[in-house]
Protein backbone atom coordinates (compact mmCIF):
# COMPACT_ATOMS: atom_id res chain seq x y z
CA UNK A 1 0.00 0.00 0.00
CA UNK A 2 2.84 2.32 0.82
CA UNK A 3 4.14 1.76 -2.69
CA UNK A 4 0.77 2.74 -4.16
CA UNK A 5 0.87 5.84 -1.98
CA UNK A 6 4.20 6.98 -3.40
CA UNK A 7 2.96 6.60 -6.97
CA UNK A 8 -0.33 8.30 -6.16
CA UNK A 9 1.36 11.24 -4.49
CA UNK A 10 3.53 11.70 -7.55
CA UNK A 11 0.46 11.59 -9.79
CA UNK A 12 -1.36 14.14 -7.64
CA UNK A 13 1.50 16.58 -7.95
CA UNK A 14 1.90 15.83 -11.64
CA UNK A 15 -1.74 16.45 -12.49
CA UNK A 16 -1.83 19.62 -10.45
CA UNK A 17 1.05 21.10 -12.42
CA UNK A 18 -0.30 19.69 -15.65
CA UNK A 19 -3.50 21.64 -15.05
CA UNK A 20 -1.57 24.79 -14.16
CA UNK A 21 0.45 24.66 -17.36
CA UNK A 22 -2.64 24.44 -19.54
CA UNK A 23 -3.39 27.99 -18.33
CA UNK A 24 0.09 29.46 -18.12
CA UNK A 25 3.21 29.10 -20.19
CA UNK A 26 5.57 29.93 -17.40
CA UNK A 27 5.48 29.91 -13.59
CA UNK A 28 8.28 31.98 -12.06
CA UNK A 29 11.35 30.93 -13.99
CA UNK A 30 9.92 27.50 -14.82
CA UNK A 31 8.67 26.46 -18.21
CA UNK A 32 6.57 23.36 -18.60
CA UNK A 33 9.63 21.25 -19.45
CA UNK A 34 11.81 22.43 -16.57
CA UNK A 35 8.91 22.10 -14.11
CA UNK A 36 8.28 18.49 -15.06
CA UNK A 37 11.99 17.77 -15.01
CA UNK A 38 12.08 19.26 -11.53
CA UNK A 39 9.14 17.14 -10.38
CA UNK A 40 10.72 13.95 -11.70
CA UNK A 41 14.03 14.51 -9.96
CA UNK A 42 12.21 15.61 -6.81
CA UNK A 43 10.09 12.45 -6.89
CA UNK A 44 13.22 10.37 -7.21
CA UNK A 45 14.87 12.18 -4.27
CA UNK A 46 11.72 11.98 -2.24
CA UNK A 47 12.00 8.22 -2.50
CA UNK A 48 15.67 8.21 -1.72
CA UNK A 49 16.25 10.98 0.80
CA UNK A 50 12.90 11.13 2.58
CA UNK A 51 12.47 7.38 2.48
CA UNK A 52 13.57 6.15 5.83
CA UNK A 53 12.79 3.19 7.96
CA UNK A 54 14.45 4.85 10.92
CA UNK A 55 11.16 6.10 12.29
CA UNK A 56 10.98 2.61 13.76
CA UNK A 57 13.65 3.68 16.21
CA UNK A 58 11.01 5.52 18.22
CA UNK A 59 8.94 2.34 18.40
CA UNK A 60 11.96 0.45 19.65
CA UNK A 61 12.57 3.06 22.31
CA UNK A 62 8.96 3.04 23.43
CA UNK A 63 8.54 -0.71 23.69
CA UNK A 64 11.99 -1.50 25.05
CA UNK A 65 13.38 -3.40 22.07
CA UNK A 66 16.23 -0.95 22.24
CA UNK A 67 17.51 -3.10 25.14
CA UNK A 68 18.64 -5.84 22.79
CA UNK A 69 20.91 -3.43 20.97
CA UNK A 70 22.22 -1.62 24.01
CA UNK A 71 23.37 -4.89 25.56
CA UNK A 72 25.56 -5.83 22.63
CA UNK A 73 28.85 -4.48 21.34
CA UNK A 74 27.00 -2.78 18.51
CA UNK A 75 26.39 0.81 17.48
CA UNK A 76 22.67 1.47 17.43
CA UNK A 77 23.24 4.49 15.28
CA UNK A 78 25.41 2.59 12.79
CA UNK A 79 22.95 -0.26 12.78
CA UNK A 80 20.15 2.08 11.79
CA UNK A 81 22.23 3.77 9.16
CA UNK A 82 22.84 0.39 7.51
CA UNK A 83 19.18 -0.62 7.79
CA UNK A 84 18.17 2.75 6.42
CA UNK A 85 20.27 2.42 3.29
CA UNK A 86 19.14 -1.15 2.75
CA UNK A 87 15.58 0.10 2.92
CA UNK A 88 16.23 3.01 0.58
CA UNK A 89 17.80 0.75 -2.02
CA UNK A 90 14.93 -1.69 -1.77
CA UNK A 91 12.45 1.14 -2.21
CA UNK A 92 14.25 2.53 -5.25
CA UNK A 93 14.26 -0.92 -6.85
CA UNK A 94 10.49 -0.65 -6.85
CA UNK A 95 10.06 3.04 -7.46
CA UNK A 96 12.42 3.53 -10.42
CA UNK A 97 10.59 1.05 -12.71
CA UNK A 98 7.28 2.57 -11.61
CA UNK A 99 8.53 6.05 -12.39
CA UNK A 100 9.86 4.84 -15.75
CA UNK A 101 6.44 3.46 -16.55
CA UNK A 102 4.78 6.77 -15.67
CA UNK A 103 7.28 8.66 -17.82
CA UNK A 104 6.40 6.45 -20.79
CA UNK A 105 2.64 6.62 -20.20
CA UNK A 106 2.47 10.40 -19.76
CA UNK A 107 5.33 11.13 -22.15
CA UNK A 108 7.06 13.34 -19.61
CA UNK A 109 10.12 14.98 -21.19
CA UNK A 110 13.43 13.97 -19.61
CA UNK A 111 16.23 16.39 -18.77
CA UNK A 112 19.71 15.18 -17.96
CA UNK A 113 22.62 17.02 -16.36
CA UNK A 114 24.94 18.70 -18.77
CA UNK A 115 28.13 16.97 -17.66
CA UNK A 116 29.49 14.02 -15.71
CA UNK A 117 30.75 16.51 -13.17
CA UNK A 118 27.15 17.58 -12.40
CA UNK A 119 26.11 13.93 -12.12
CA UNK A 120 28.80 13.26 -9.54
CA UNK A 121 28.00 16.44 -7.68
CA UNK A 122 24.30 15.52 -7.62
CA UNK A 123 25.03 12.05 -6.24
CA UNK A 124 27.21 13.46 -3.47
CA UNK A 125 24.49 15.94 -2.52
CA UNK A 126 21.81 13.25 -2.56
CA UNK A 127 23.90 11.17 -0.15
CA UNK A 128 24.56 14.15 2.10
CA UNK A 129 20.85 15.00 2.00
CA UNK A 130 19.99 11.45 3.01
CA UNK A 131 22.40 11.68 5.89
CA UNK A 132 20.90 14.99 6.97
CA UNK A 133 17.41 13.54 6.90
CA UNK A 134 18.59 10.48 8.78
CA UNK A 135 19.94 12.62 11.61
CA UNK A 136 16.79 14.72 11.58
CA UNK A 137 14.61 11.62 11.71
CA UNK A 138 16.67 10.15 14.53
CA UNK A 139 16.20 13.34 16.46
CA UNK A 140 12.43 13.10 16.05
CA UNK A 141 12.56 9.47 17.20
CA UNK A 142 14.33 10.49 20.41
CA UNK A 143 11.09 12.14 21.42
CA UNK A 144 10.01 8.69 22.60
CA UNK A 145 12.53 8.77 25.45
CA UNK A 146 10.46 11.49 27.07
CA UNK A 147 7.03 10.38 25.90
CA UNK A 148 7.15 6.60 25.63
CA UNK A 149 3.37 6.31 25.97
CA UNK A 150 2.92 6.35 22.23
CA UNK A 151 5.01 5.14 19.34
CA UNK A 152 5.97 8.59 18.11
CA UNK A 153 3.66 8.56 15.10
CA UNK A 154 1.68 11.73 15.79
CA UNK A 155 4.82 13.81 15.70
CA UNK A 156 6.17 11.86 12.74
CA UNK A 157 2.99 12.40 10.77
CA UNK A 158 3.01 16.09 11.50
CA UNK A 159 6.62 16.26 10.37
CA UNK A 160 6.01 14.36 7.11
CA UNK A 161 3.17 16.67 6.16
CA UNK A 162 5.31 19.73 6.57
CA UNK A 163 8.29 18.13 4.90
CA UNK A 164 6.47 17.63 1.59
CA UNK A 165 6.00 21.35 1.54
CA UNK A 166 9.28 22.55 3.07
CA UNK A 167 11.64 20.19 1.28
CA UNK A 168 10.47 21.15 -2.18
CA UNK A 169 8.99 17.76 -2.99
CA UNK A 170 5.71 19.18 -4.29
CA UNK A 171 7.00 22.31 -6.02
CA UNK A 172 10.26 24.20 -6.42
CA UNK A 173 10.87 26.56 -3.52
CA UNK A 174 12.05 29.42 -5.75
CA UNK A 175 8.60 30.10 -7.20
CA UNK A 176 7.98 32.17 -4.07
CA UNK A 177 8.91 35.84 -3.69
CA UNK A 178 12.57 36.57 -3.03
CA UNK A 179 12.41 36.97 0.80
CA UNK A 180 10.71 33.60 1.23
CA UNK A 181 13.21 31.91 -1.08
CA UNK A 182 16.04 33.42 0.95
CA UNK A 183 14.49 32.14 4.16
CA UNK A 184 14.27 28.64 2.66
CA UNK A 185 17.94 28.80 1.79
CA UNK A 186 18.80 28.90 5.48
CA UNK A 187 16.39 26.18 6.56
CA UNK A 188 17.75 22.64 6.76
CA UNK A 189 14.66 21.19 5.07
CA UNK A 190 15.34 22.64 1.62
CA UNK A 191 18.54 20.57 1.45
CA UNK A 192 16.65 17.30 1.43
CA UNK A 193 15.23 17.70 -2.07
CA UNK A 194 15.20 21.24 -3.41
CA UNK A 195 18.92 21.97 -3.36
CA UNK A 196 20.17 18.72 -5.00
CA UNK A 197 17.45 19.01 -7.63
CA UNK A 198 18.50 22.55 -8.51
CA UNK A 199 22.06 21.33 -8.90
CA UNK A 200 20.88 18.50 -11.16
CA UNK A 201 19.00 20.93 -13.38
CA UNK A 202 21.97 23.29 -13.45
CA UNK A 203 19.90 26.20 -12.18
CA UNK A 204 22.36 27.46 -9.58
CA UNK A 205 25.38 29.69 -10.02
CA UNK A 206 28.71 28.48 -8.72
CA UNK A 207 28.56 30.81 -5.71
CA UNK A 208 25.02 29.67 -4.89
CA UNK A 209 26.15 26.06 -5.01
CA UNK A 210 29.08 26.79 -2.75
CA UNK A 211 27.08 28.74 -0.17
CA UNK A 212 24.41 26.03 -0.30
CA UNK A 213 27.00 23.37 0.43
CA UNK A 214 28.37 25.37 3.36
CA UNK A 215 24.90 25.79 4.86
CA UNK A 216 24.18 22.08 4.30
CA UNK A 217 27.39 21.03 6.02
CA UNK A 218 26.62 23.41 8.85
CA UNK A 219 23.22 21.75 9.40
CA UNK A 220 24.79 18.30 9.18
CA UNK A 221 27.16 19.25 11.96
CA UNK A 222 24.39 20.83 14.04
CA UNK A 223 22.15 17.79 13.74
CA UNK A 224 25.01 15.41 14.42
CA UNK A 225 25.79 17.09 17.72
CA UNK A 226 22.12 17.53 18.61
CA UNK A 227 21.54 13.80 18.09
CA UNK A 228 24.57 13.03 20.22
CA UNK A 229 23.47 15.26 23.07
CA UNK A 230 19.81 14.28 22.95
CA UNK A 231 20.64 10.56 22.89
CA UNK A 232 23.00 10.93 25.79
CA UNK A 233 20.28 12.68 27.78
CA UNK A 234 17.62 10.30 26.54
CA UNK A 235 19.50 7.18 27.56
CA UNK A 236 19.91 8.60 31.05
CA UNK A 237 16.18 8.70 31.54
CA UNK A 238 15.50 5.63 29.40
CA UNK A 239 13.31 3.26 31.35
CA UNK A 240 14.29 0.04 29.53
CA UNK A 241 10.64 -0.91 29.63
CA UNK A 242 9.01 -3.89 28.09
CA UNK A 243 8.94 -6.05 31.16
Amino acid at each position, binding site marked *: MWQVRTVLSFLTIYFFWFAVFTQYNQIGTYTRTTMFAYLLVAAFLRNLVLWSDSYHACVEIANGDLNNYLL*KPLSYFGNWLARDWADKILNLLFFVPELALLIIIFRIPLVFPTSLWVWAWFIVLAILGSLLYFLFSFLVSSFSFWYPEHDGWPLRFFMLMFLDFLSGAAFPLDIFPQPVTTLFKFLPTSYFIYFPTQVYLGRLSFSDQLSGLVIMLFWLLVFFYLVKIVWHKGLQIYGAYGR
Partner: protein
Amino acid sequence: MALISVSHLKKYYRVYKKEPGLSGSLKSLFHRKYEDVKAVNNVSFDIKEGELVGFIGPNGAGKTTTLKVLSGLLYPTSGKVSVLGFIPFDRQPQFQKQFSLVMGQKNQLWWDLPALDSFLLNKEIYEIPTQQFNQTLAELVKMLDLGEVLKVQVRKLSLGQRMKCELVAALLHLPKVLFLDEPTIGLDVVMQQKIRDFIKGYNQKYKATIILTSHYMDDVKELCSRVIIIDKGKIFFDGKLDAIIKKYADHKILELVFSGPVTKSDFSVIPAAKIKDFDLPRVTFSVPRDSANEVAAKLLTKFPVADLNITEPSIEDIIREVFTGRDMS
Protein backbone atom coordinates in the same frame (compact mmCIF):
# COMPACT_ATOMS: atom_id res chain seq x y z
CA MET B 1 38.70 -8.21 44.50
CA ALA B 2 34.96 -8.19 43.81
CA LEU B 3 33.93 -8.87 40.24
CA ILE B 4 30.66 -7.04 40.69
CA SER B 5 30.47 -4.19 43.09
CA VAL B 6 27.41 -2.12 43.87
CA SER B 7 27.52 0.61 46.44
CA HIS B 8 24.63 2.80 47.56
CA LEU B 9 22.82 2.28 44.29
CA LYS B 10 19.62 4.23 43.83
CA LYS B 11 17.34 4.22 40.84
CA TYR B 12 14.25 6.37 40.91
CA TYR B 13 11.71 6.40 38.11
CA ARG B 14 9.64 9.45 37.47
CA VAL B 15 6.08 8.49 36.79
CA TYR B 16 3.00 10.59 36.39
CA LYS B 17 -0.39 9.70 37.71
CA LYS B 18 -3.46 10.12 35.63
CA GLU B 19 -6.97 10.26 36.95
CA PRO B 20 -9.13 7.63 35.32
CA GLY B 21 -11.45 8.42 32.44
CA LEU B 22 -11.64 11.09 29.75
CA SER B 23 -11.72 14.05 32.13
CA GLY B 24 -8.58 12.71 33.76
CA SER B 25 -6.91 12.41 30.37
CA LEU B 26 -7.81 15.99 29.51
CA LYS B 27 -6.55 17.23 32.83
CA SER B 28 -3.28 15.40 32.39
CA LEU B 29 -2.66 17.35 29.18
CA PHE B 30 -2.29 20.51 31.20
CA HIS B 31 -1.17 19.41 34.57
CA ARG B 32 0.68 16.25 35.42
CA LYS B 33 1.39 15.08 38.88
CA TYR B 34 4.80 13.48 38.91
CA GLU B 35 6.06 11.15 41.52
CA ASP B 36 9.32 9.37 42.14
CA VAL B 37 9.11 5.62 42.35
CA LYS B 38 12.04 4.33 44.33
CA ALA B 39 12.68 1.14 42.40
CA VAL B 40 16.08 0.64 44.00
CA ASN B 41 16.83 2.56 47.14
CA ASN B 42 20.34 2.44 48.54
CA VAL B 43 21.47 -1.05 47.70
CA SER B 44 25.03 -2.28 48.22
CA PHE B 45 26.64 -5.67 47.65
CA ASP B 46 29.78 -7.31 46.29
CA ILE B 47 29.98 -10.49 44.29
CA LYS B 48 33.16 -12.52 43.84
CA GLU B 49 34.26 -14.37 40.74
CA GLY B 50 32.48 -17.67 40.18
CA GLU B 51 29.68 -16.99 42.67
CA LEU B 52 26.13 -17.97 41.83
CA VAL B 53 23.88 -15.57 43.66
CA GLY B 54 20.10 -15.74 43.92
CA PHE B 55 18.19 -12.51 43.85
CA ILE B 56 14.75 -12.91 45.32
CA GLY B 57 11.89 -10.67 46.25
CA PRO B 58 8.26 -10.06 45.38
CA ASN B 59 7.14 -8.40 42.15
CA GLY B 60 8.29 -4.82 41.96
CA ALA B 61 10.99 -5.31 44.56
CA GLY B 62 13.69 -3.88 42.29
CA LYS B 63 15.39 -7.08 41.14
CA THR B 64 15.07 -6.48 37.42
CA THR B 65 15.92 -2.81 37.81
CA THR B 66 19.15 -3.76 39.58
CA LEU B 67 20.05 -6.20 36.81
CA LYS B 68 19.30 -3.57 34.19
CA VAL B 69 21.59 -1.11 35.93
CA LEU B 70 24.30 -3.77 36.10
CA SER B 71 23.86 -4.36 32.35
CA GLY B 72 24.18 -0.69 31.47
CA LEU B 73 20.60 -0.28 30.29
CA LEU B 74 19.61 2.08 33.05
CA TYR B 75 21.44 5.10 34.32
CA PRO B 76 21.68 4.99 38.10
CA THR B 77 20.12 7.91 39.95
CA SER B 78 23.04 7.76 42.36
CA GLY B 79 25.60 5.33 43.69
CA LYS B 80 28.52 3.43 42.20
CA VAL B 81 28.32 0.29 40.10
CA SER B 82 31.20 -1.65 38.65
CA VAL B 83 31.16 -4.93 36.75
CA LEU B 84 34.42 -6.56 35.64
CA GLY B 85 36.09 -3.24 36.37
CA PHE B 86 33.86 -1.35 33.93
CA ILE B 87 31.10 1.15 34.54
CA PRO B 88 28.16 -0.58 32.85
CA PHE B 89 26.46 2.58 31.56
CA ASP B 90 29.54 3.45 29.49
CA ARG B 91 28.68 0.36 27.44
CA GLN B 92 32.22 -0.27 26.28
CA PRO B 93 32.48 -3.13 23.78
CA GLN B 94 35.18 -4.86 25.86
CA PHE B 95 32.66 -5.03 28.69
CA GLN B 96 29.73 -6.05 26.52
CA LYS B 97 31.67 -8.96 25.08
CA GLN B 98 32.06 -10.41 28.56
CA PHE B 99 28.55 -10.43 29.92
CA SER B 100 25.01 -11.36 29.00
CA LEU B 101 21.55 -10.57 30.26
CA VAL B 102 18.82 -13.11 29.70
CA MET B 103 15.26 -12.10 30.39
CA GLY B 104 12.68 -14.82 30.58
CA GLN B 105 9.95 -12.57 29.29
CA LYS B 106 11.80 -10.75 26.59
CA ASN B 107 13.50 -12.24 23.61
CA GLN B 108 16.49 -11.26 21.58
CA LEU B 109 15.99 -13.94 18.93
CA TRP B 110 14.52 -12.84 15.59
CA TRP B 111 10.96 -13.99 15.66
CA ASP B 112 10.66 -14.82 11.95
CA LEU B 113 14.03 -16.48 11.52
CA PRO B 114 15.33 -19.82 12.70
CA ALA B 115 17.39 -19.56 15.88
CA LEU B 116 20.52 -20.50 13.96
CA ASP B 117 20.34 -17.24 11.98
CA SER B 118 20.20 -15.23 15.19
CA PHE B 119 23.18 -17.19 16.46
CA LEU B 120 25.14 -16.37 13.31
CA LEU B 121 24.24 -12.71 13.71
CA ASN B 122 25.53 -12.79 17.27
CA LYS B 123 28.69 -14.47 16.04
CA GLU B 124 29.36 -11.40 13.89
CA ILE B 125 28.29 -8.89 16.52
CA TYR B 126 30.49 -10.42 19.21
CA GLU B 127 33.26 -11.17 16.71
CA ILE B 128 33.49 -14.81 17.74
CA PRO B 129 36.12 -16.77 15.77
CA THR B 130 34.47 -19.43 13.57
CA GLN B 131 36.20 -22.34 15.25
CA GLN B 132 35.25 -21.20 18.73
CA PHE B 133 31.70 -20.51 17.57
CA ASN B 134 31.25 -23.98 16.14
CA GLN B 135 32.72 -25.62 19.20
CA THR B 136 30.66 -23.60 21.68
CA LEU B 137 27.48 -24.04 19.70
CA ALA B 138 27.95 -27.80 19.47
CA GLU B 139 28.57 -27.96 23.19
CA LEU B 140 25.59 -25.81 24.15
CA VAL B 141 23.30 -27.66 21.78
CA LYS B 142 24.37 -30.93 23.34
CA MET B 143 23.99 -29.67 26.91
CA LEU B 144 20.49 -28.39 26.16
CA ASP B 145 19.47 -31.18 23.82
CA LEU B 146 18.53 -28.81 21.00
CA GLY B 147 19.65 -30.58 17.82
CA GLU B 148 16.38 -30.62 15.93
CA VAL B 149 15.00 -27.15 16.49
CA LEU B 150 17.82 -24.85 15.37
CA LYS B 151 16.53 -24.57 11.82
CA VAL B 152 12.88 -23.98 12.74
CA GLN B 153 11.42 -20.46 12.80
CA VAL B 154 11.53 -19.16 16.35
CA ARG B 155 7.81 -18.31 16.33
CA LYS B 156 7.05 -21.99 15.80
CA LEU B 157 9.00 -23.15 18.85
CA SER B 158 7.51 -24.03 22.20
CA LEU B 159 8.23 -21.77 25.15
CA GLY B 160 10.75 -24.24 26.58
CA GLN B 161 12.60 -24.63 23.31
CA ARG B 162 12.65 -20.89 22.84
CA MET B 163 14.06 -20.31 26.30
CA LYS B 164 16.81 -22.81 25.61
CA CYS B 165 17.60 -21.03 22.35
CA GLU B 166 17.66 -17.70 24.19
CA LEU B 167 20.21 -19.15 26.56
CA VAL B 168 22.37 -20.37 23.69
CA ALA B 169 22.19 -16.96 21.98
CA ALA B 170 23.27 -15.30 25.22
CA LEU B 171 26.13 -17.70 25.89
CA LEU B 172 27.76 -18.07 22.48
CA HIS B 173 30.43 -15.53 23.39
CA LEU B 174 31.06 -17.38 26.67
CA PRO B 175 30.32 -14.48 29.00
CA LYS B 176 32.17 -14.35 32.29
CA VAL B 177 29.23 -12.64 33.92
CA LEU B 178 25.67 -13.75 33.41
CA PHE B 179 22.49 -12.07 34.59
CA LEU B 180 19.45 -14.32 34.44
CA ASP B 181 16.12 -12.65 35.00
CA GLU B 182 13.47 -15.28 35.65
CA PRO B 183 14.91 -17.82 33.24
CA THR B 184 12.42 -20.50 34.26
CA ILE B 185 9.26 -18.40 34.19
CA GLY B 186 6.32 -20.17 32.59
CA LEU B 187 8.18 -23.43 32.08
CA ASP B 188 6.98 -26.83 33.22
CA VAL B 189 8.67 -28.66 36.07
CA VAL B 190 10.77 -30.91 33.86
CA MET B 191 12.00 -28.02 31.75
CA GLN B 192 12.71 -25.94 34.86
CA GLN B 193 14.91 -28.73 36.13
CA LYS B 194 16.77 -28.96 32.83
CA ILE B 195 17.44 -25.23 32.73
CA ARG B 196 18.58 -25.37 36.35
CA ASP B 197 20.99 -28.22 35.67
CA PHE B 198 22.30 -26.33 32.71
CA ILE B 199 22.91 -23.13 34.68
CA LYS B 200 24.72 -25.09 37.35
CA GLY B 201 26.83 -26.82 34.71
CA TYR B 202 27.72 -23.55 33.01
CA ASN B 203 28.68 -21.98 36.31
CA GLN B 204 31.02 -24.85 37.17
CA LYS B 205 32.48 -25.42 33.75
CA TYR B 206 33.30 -21.84 32.84
CA LYS B 207 33.73 -20.42 36.36
CA ALA B 208 31.11 -17.89 35.37
CA THR B 209 29.70 -15.41 37.83
CA ILE B 210 25.93 -15.56 37.78
CA ILE B 211 23.13 -13.54 39.30
CA LEU B 212 19.77 -15.20 39.05
CA THR B 213 16.37 -13.81 39.88
CA SER B 214 13.41 -16.07 40.25
CA HIS B 215 10.01 -16.44 41.78
CA TYR B 216 10.56 -20.14 42.14
CA MET B 217 12.25 -20.95 45.42
CA ASP B 218 13.37 -24.28 43.98
CA ASP B 219 15.61 -22.46 41.51
CA VAL B 220 17.29 -20.59 44.28
CA LYS B 221 17.42 -23.48 46.75
CA GLU B 222 19.07 -25.74 44.27
CA LEU B 223 21.45 -23.35 42.59
CA CYS B 224 22.48 -20.61 44.92
CA SER B 225 24.40 -20.91 48.14
CA ARG B 226 24.09 -17.18 48.61
CA VAL B 227 20.90 -15.19 48.33
CA ILE B 228 20.13 -11.51 48.37
CA ILE B 229 16.58 -10.75 49.38
CA ILE B 230 15.27 -7.43 48.25
CA ASP B 231 11.97 -5.78 48.97
CA LYS B 232 10.68 -2.30 48.17
CA GLY B 233 14.08 -1.40 46.74
CA LYS B 234 16.05 -2.35 49.83
CA ILE B 235 18.14 -5.34 50.74
CA PHE B 236 17.09 -6.95 53.93
CA PHE B 237 19.03 -10.14 53.76
CA ASP B 238 22.33 -11.06 52.13
CA GLY B 239 23.98 -14.35 53.02
CA LYS B 240 23.73 -18.09 52.96
CA LEU B 241 20.32 -19.55 52.37
CA ASP B 242 20.44 -21.63 55.57
CA ALA B 243 21.16 -18.51 57.55
CA ILE B 244 17.73 -17.09 56.69
CA ILE B 245 16.18 -19.82 58.77
CA LYS B 246 18.42 -19.09 61.72
CA LYS B 247 17.88 -15.36 61.45
CA TYR B 248 14.18 -15.13 60.76
CA ALA B 249 12.63 -18.38 61.89
CA ASP B 250 12.15 -17.87 65.59
CA HIS B 251 9.66 -20.69 65.65
CA LYS B 252 9.40 -24.37 64.81
CA ILE B 253 6.58 -26.39 63.40
CA LEU B 254 5.08 -29.26 65.43
CA GLU B 255 3.00 -31.65 63.44
CA LEU B 256 0.89 -34.06 65.50
CA VAL B 257 -1.45 -36.86 64.58
CA PHE B 258 -3.88 -37.67 67.38
CA SER B 259 -5.27 -41.11 68.06
CA GLY B 260 -8.23 -39.90 70.14
CA PRO B 261 -10.78 -37.06 70.05
CA VAL B 262 -9.49 -33.52 70.73
CA THR B 263 -11.02 -30.06 70.29
CA LYS B 264 -9.38 -26.72 69.59
CA SER B 265 -10.10 -25.41 73.07
CA ASP B 266 -8.29 -28.35 74.66
CA PHE B 267 -4.99 -26.81 73.70
CA SER B 268 -5.52 -23.57 75.60
CA VAL B 269 -3.70 -25.19 78.51
CA ILE B 270 -0.48 -24.84 76.54
CA PRO B 271 -0.43 -21.14 75.58
CA ALA B 272 2.94 -21.39 73.78
CA ALA B 273 1.41 -23.72 71.17
CA LYS B 274 -0.36 -21.71 68.50
CA ILE B 275 -2.60 -23.69 66.20
CA LYS B 276 -1.60 -23.17 62.56
CA ASP B 277 -3.80 -25.77 61.02
CA PHE B 278 -6.58 -27.87 62.53
CA ASP B 279 -7.59 -30.82 60.39
CA LEU B 280 -8.24 -33.83 62.57
CA PRO B 281 -6.59 -36.13 63.24
CA ARG B 282 -3.68 -33.89 62.09
CA VAL B 283 -2.96 -30.65 63.92
CA THR B 284 -0.07 -28.31 63.19
CA PHE B 285 1.32 -25.95 65.81
CA SER B 286 3.70 -23.07 65.56
CA VAL B 287 5.92 -22.91 68.64
CA PRO B 288 8.69 -20.54 69.72
CA ARG B 289 12.04 -22.13 68.97
CA ASP B 290 13.24 -22.22 72.63
CA SER B 291 10.16 -23.91 74.01
CA ALA B 292 9.64 -26.41 71.18
CA ASN B 293 10.90 -29.41 73.14
CA GLU B 294 9.02 -28.47 76.26
CA VAL B 295 5.73 -27.99 74.37
CA ALA B 296 6.23 -31.26 72.53
CA ALA B 297 6.71 -33.08 75.85
CA LYS B 298 3.56 -31.52 77.31
CA LEU B 299 1.50 -32.42 74.25
CA LEU B 300 2.75 -35.99 74.42
CA THR B 301 1.79 -36.43 78.05
CA LYS B 302 -1.57 -34.65 77.98
CA PHE B 303 -3.07 -35.89 74.71
CA PRO B 304 -3.38 -39.19 72.87
CA VAL B 305 -0.67 -38.71 70.24
CA ALA B 306 -0.10 -41.20 67.42
CA ASP B 307 2.68 -39.34 65.71
CA LEU B 308 4.84 -36.26 66.34
CA ASN B 309 7.10 -34.42 63.98
CA ILE B 310 9.22 -31.31 64.69
CA THR B 311 10.35 -29.39 61.60
CA GLU B 312 11.82 -26.06 60.54
CA PRO B 313 9.40 -23.84 58.67
CA SER B 314 10.02 -23.88 54.92
CA ILE B 315 12.03 -21.08 53.35
CA GLU B 316 9.02 -20.18 51.25
CA ASP B 317 6.98 -19.67 54.40
CA ILE B 318 9.62 -17.58 56.05
CA ILE B 319 10.10 -15.37 53.06
CA ARG B 320 6.41 -15.02 52.45
CA GLU B 321 5.81 -14.07 56.02
CA VAL B 322 8.67 -11.64 56.08
CA PHE B 323 7.36 -9.95 52.93
CA THR B 324 3.81 -9.74 54.08
CA GLY B 325 5.02 -8.38 57.39
CA ARG B 326 3.18 -10.94 59.37
CA ASP B 327 4.21 -12.29 62.69
CA MET B 328 6.01 -15.50 61.97
CA SER B 329 5.20 -17.46 65.07
